[in-house]
């Protein structure tokens, strides 16, 4: 026995020694496998749920879909508004029918023809599959799709003149897929999609390992709205850890780092001569929700008083110092947000800037004091603000600690904050467990309505018991108003009305930040909130 085990040990030892030598050698031969100038490597901390548009409703998956699938409508570079992409035109032929004419001769990368039948297939399967991870909820207004001919698609809508429908077609629910590759009633596995080359966007995927590495090649058959890709090959590397991505972009191992570097890293990269930091407007917003039932003086509390509750909300709005949070916690990668629709979108106002605080965006404790006194509130108001640490970025803790600090320093509140892990948080917040709590929002498409309907219409996802008939009426009106100037006016009016009631308190708006190597050109971050690889070159 002993000799056997000893021999085995010796063998193991020899193998170990060999491998170790190899390790050491490898360490010396620091092979800098340089990519050819035709290839750009992008690093990201995004995560992909699925390549199938019916199976994913998250930024990471949509970032890929944006590159490889065509849309009927899409946002041109530099604009928040949509234009026909692979469509020729789109018009309301009657209030409940939106007719889209496709361009002719469209093809997928695998050679299959792209016709109205594929479009119908795309939306039918979205509605049929209705995957819990999928975006089918965006198609709530879609009743059915018909195809009079090969290049015409009629969308039959439940609500008349839906002005957001073009935007919906550019959203995560909108990528057009190949009916010969995708399954009609199931989410199609990523590998089948890649193998089937069911792509018709600016790029096609040529090599795919989920959440690790994707290689894209420019697709010459793309005939849509956007200019063809400038760089033939794009490699995208997926990181789990933002600090690794930061080190790699600094070393030049990746050319572009997009989403999401830590604020500290971005601040330090701004000083680095080897990289450029590209900023763009961001659609992400961060805000505090007040539960109208359980907040201080809320409808279901012992001392319910709607006036006092409003005064509390207004006083909080007077006291928070957004700029301080943006600078200290986020190193100015976020900017103060003074309305519900973020800056950069058509119809955005700054309603809260003039209504609350010192009128110039800063805090005003005296005003808050006066507001509370006027409502008859004496003594400090107790606030327990809830937030979650693992969904809205790692800085939530610092953000809310600072808010609590600001509230307490005003002398008007005794504020505390507590954090809860996201899944439990999602359950608790809709069950009225939290009187005041954090939420964030990333838009589905770049239309102001995406910041209004989901929040303030009936049965919204916030579920904070805010229910204002007038605001709802205005929202319904806004959606169906075809005249764009009149619609913008309505959107502005809604924001002013909501700002007076403060069901939620907008805090910050995120900017998009990409870090690129100094020789990389063309990184475009605009109000479409889509980062297209096609504009990049070096």
């Amino acid at each position, binding site marked *: 026995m002993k000799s056997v085990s000893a021999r085995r040990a010796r063998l193991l030892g020899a193998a170990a020694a060999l491998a170790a030598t190899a390790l050491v050698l490898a360490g010396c031969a620091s092979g800098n496998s340089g990519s050819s100038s035709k290839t750009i490597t992008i690093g990201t901390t995004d995560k992909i749920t699925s390549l199938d548009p019916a199976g994913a409703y998250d930024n990471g998956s949509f970032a890929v879909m944006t590159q490889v699938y065509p849309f009927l409508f899409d946002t041109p570079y530099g604009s928040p508004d949509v234009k026909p992409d692979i469509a020729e035109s789109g018009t309301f032929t009657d209030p409940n029918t939106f007719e889209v004419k496709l361009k002719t001769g469209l093809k997928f990368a695998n050679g299959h023809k792209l016709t109205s039948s594929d479009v119908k297939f795309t939306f039918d399967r979205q509605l049929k599959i209705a995957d819990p991870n999928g975006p089918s909820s965006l198609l709530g207004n879609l009743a059915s799709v018909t195809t009079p001919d090969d290049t015409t698609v009629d969308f039959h809508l439940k609500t008349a003149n839906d002005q957001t429908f073009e935007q919906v077609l550019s959203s995560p629910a909108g990528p057009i897929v190949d009916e010969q590759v995708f399954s009609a009633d199931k989410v199609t596995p990523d590998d089948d999609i890649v193998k089937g080359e069911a792509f018709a966007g600016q790029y096609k995927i040529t090599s795919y390992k989920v959440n690790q590495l994707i290689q894209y090649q420019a697709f010459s058959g793309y005939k849509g709205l956007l200019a063809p890709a400038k760089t033939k090959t794009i490699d995208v590397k997926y990181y789990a850890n933002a600090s690794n991505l930061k080190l790699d972009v600094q070393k030049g191992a990746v050319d572009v780092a997009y989403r999401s570097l830590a604020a500290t890293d971005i601040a330090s990269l701004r000083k680095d001569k080897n990289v450029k930091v590209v900023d763009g407007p961001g659609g992400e917003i961060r805000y505090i929700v007040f539960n109208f039932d359980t907040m201080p003086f809320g409808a279901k509390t012992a001392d319910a008083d709607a006036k006092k509750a409003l005064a509390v909300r207004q006083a909080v709005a007077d006291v928070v110092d957004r700029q301080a949070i943006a600078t200290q916690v986020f190193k100015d990668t976020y900017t103060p947000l003074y309305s519900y629709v973020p800056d950069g979108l058509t119809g955005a106002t700054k309603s809260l800037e003039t209504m609350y605080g010192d009128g110039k965006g800063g805090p005003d404790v005296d005003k808050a004091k006066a507001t509370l006194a006027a409502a008859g509130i004496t003594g400090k108001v107790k606030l327990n603000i809830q937030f979650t640490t693992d969904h809205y970025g790692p800085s939530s803790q610092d953000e809310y600690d600072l808010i609590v600090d600001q509230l307490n320093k005003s002398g008007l509140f005794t504020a505390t904050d507590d954090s*809860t892990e996201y899944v439990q948080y999602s359950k608790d917040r809709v069950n009225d467990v939290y009187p005041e709590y954090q939420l964030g929002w990333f838009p589905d498409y770049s239309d102001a309505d995406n910041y209004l309907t989901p929040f303030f219409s009936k049965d919204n996802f916030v579920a904070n018991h805010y229910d204002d008939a007038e605001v709802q009426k205005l929202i319904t009106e806004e959606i169906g108003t075809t005249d764009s100037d009149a619609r913008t006016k309505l959107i502005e009016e809604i924001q002013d009305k909501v700002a007076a009631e403060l069901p939620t308190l907008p805090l910050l708006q995120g900017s998009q930040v990409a870090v690129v190597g100094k020789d990389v050109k063309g990184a475009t971050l605009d109000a479409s909130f889509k980062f297209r690889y096609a504009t990049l070159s070096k």
Partner: protein
Amino acid sequence: MSTASVLAQPRKRSLLRRLPIVAQLNQSVGVQRFMLLTGVIITSVYVLVAIFADVIAPYSYSALSGADGRNFGSQQPPGAAHLWGTTVGGLDVFSRTIYGARTALIVVVVAVVLSMVIGVLLGLLSGYFGGPLDRVLVVICDAIYAFPSLLLAIVISIMISGGQSTFWSGILSAAFSITVVYVPQYFRVVRAEVVRVKAEAFVESAKVIGARHSRILFRHVLRNSIRTLPLIITLNATEAFETLAGLGFLGFGIAPSAAGEWGYDLQKALADVTSGIWWTALFPGLAIVFLALGISLMGESLNDLADPRLRRRQADAGESAVPAETVVEAQS
């Protein structure tokens, strides 16, 4: 000098000398004594820091501003106002590191007491009585031992706290998960010893003279079985606070508004380090390493002293035989 005091004197000393650790310190010599002493000193420093954290730390673990009401500012380098600088969130690194010792030691105490009590009891009963209960327990312990402890800790932390990052939920999730993982280890060791000791003459004779089970268990078997425990205890202790730090590092730990916690600080410092801000990671990191070092040195030394093969006997211990080690050294 009265007779009473003369009598009391040696007895007192012997009591002191019989205390754990002190006894071993007296027993040890040379390098072994040095290592044990180092371990004891480091660990005691941590205990003292934990107890007097309020006195030592200039600020609270959650303070964003000092007495003057002005914010510290984030990522301030070490200086007069902030001995070890401030974190990205604008907290004082020194104060948080000091308070971290308190959190760590509470976890250690809770975890060790829980695991030891449960593990030793189960091991005693299982080994002493044997039978089907013994078999079932052995299989369950085998299985649980296979579960990765950190992941177990994450799941438990979500379960017991509903994901709330409060002080006690963080402490208890780390402590409970460590308990779950370590109970099988105490269980195995104690059970094995019990099985061995049970067969020995003095237990047999106790049985013969009709001593009760409980008496045999606790008087004879337990006392002989727990010799092997110091090392497990220290491993258990180390792993307890390192699991807490791991939880903090993965974002499931204790919120900074609830307590100082090193793992959380380290996680927040990740981005700092790559940006040349070294002070936010270094101090909590070193705090973890030194506490682990202190406890482990103590445990290893105690273990060596308990193991006759590894012990270097003291010259005055009255052993006439020359220890084998000495012979070996002379030859080399």
